[in-house]
């Protein structure tokens, strides 16, 4: 798959619009889903998706092939989303984690809750942006922690820590919703 993407990028670098269209069709949906998960605004996400692929068109010649094409494009989308959040004044750059009491959530309750899309959507929305981004890339896009680190421009250890805290907060939120009888 990545070899196909790299072939398309090479063609795009030569000005091939058909290759750009093919790459857009291959990656538009996951990239859009990633952006919208960060911004929660479909209109703004569409504009950023557009800007991402314009950047791909303009800078395909500078792609060195050291990473996957998908990782490179998600990195562009990540940075553009940050710019958008910065403009809104909504960016939280600290890596602090909320205090958590040490009792683990009931996993049976949690298992029931996490099969309900509404619960999962709500609880993802309660996470800080860096936690939500890490979980989204891991579970929507099935990325390795190395790839997530590359997209977000942080060390691998930071990604593991973010995922660890995001997982705990997510499970706590999910079991809490069931225990409070929310549907």
């Amino acid at each position, binding site marked *: 798959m990545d070899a196909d993407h790299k072939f398309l990028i090479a063609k795009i670098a030569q000005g091939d619009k058909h290759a750009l269209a093919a790459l857009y069709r291959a990656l*538009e949906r996951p990239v859009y889903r990633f952006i919208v998960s960060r911004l929660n605004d479909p209109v703004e996400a569409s504009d950023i998706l*557009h800007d991402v692929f314009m950047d791909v068109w*303009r800078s395909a010649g500078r792609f060195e092939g050291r990473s996957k094409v998908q990782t490179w494009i998600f990195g562009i989308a990540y940075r553009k989303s940050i710019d958008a959040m910065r403009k809104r004044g909504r960016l939280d750059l600290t890596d602090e984690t909320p205090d958590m009491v040490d009792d683990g959530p009931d996993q049976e309750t949690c298992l029931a809750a*996490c*099969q309900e899309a509404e619960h999962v959507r709500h609880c993802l929305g309660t996470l800080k942006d860096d936690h939500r981004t890490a*979980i989204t890339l891991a579970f929507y896009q099935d990325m390795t*922690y190395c790839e997530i680190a590359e997209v977000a421009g942080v060390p691998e250890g930071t990604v593991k820590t973010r995922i*660890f805290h995001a997982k705990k907060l997510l499970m706590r939120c999910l079991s809490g919703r069931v225990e409070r009888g929310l549907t």
Partner: protein
Amino acid sequence: MTCDEVNELLPFRANGTLEGEELVAVEAALAADADLRAELAVLIAIRDTMQAEEAQSPGDFGLARLLRDVEAEARGPTPLAANDNVVSLTRLRIWQVAAAVVLAVGIGFTLPQFATSPEPVAGRDAESAVGEGYSLASGGETADFTVIFSPDASEREIRALLLDAGVEIVSGPSAIGLYRLNLLDSASRNDALEILSGADIIGDIE
């Protein structure tokens, strides 16, 4: 591998990307710990639920917009700098313009019926009567051009076109999505008309 390290890697066991020694270590921990297996089941369920969510992406419309902008960029640089002479359009929503165009089409069917009543004034045709009877909701001043922008036109594209043609928005959008444009001091009417008429993002121009 410590318990914390296994916990940090568990999400990557859930998404199937763990390999080599890390995978072996996590599998060994899972075999020995029922709580860890239960947590993995939860993570897999969360992942499955997230992956089942559909997102309505821009699809072919987004691709058409992309290719159009790529073409435009290939034709030459577009002035993108802010200009105080141009009315600032903040976050023009695609759906708002789309709704305006739908309304415009509907009213386009309705107008001719009103144009014939009351009695046409002698010496005037129906078109001028319509011009007198209906005005833009926002602004009554005269304008050099009246246009409708296409539904998928972005603010940036509109701004660039206005700069290129040497015009500014003096009123609009009206309830049916019309904008009135006036020439800037140094602009030529014929040049502006040619540029506006040839622009992809102009749906209609008078």
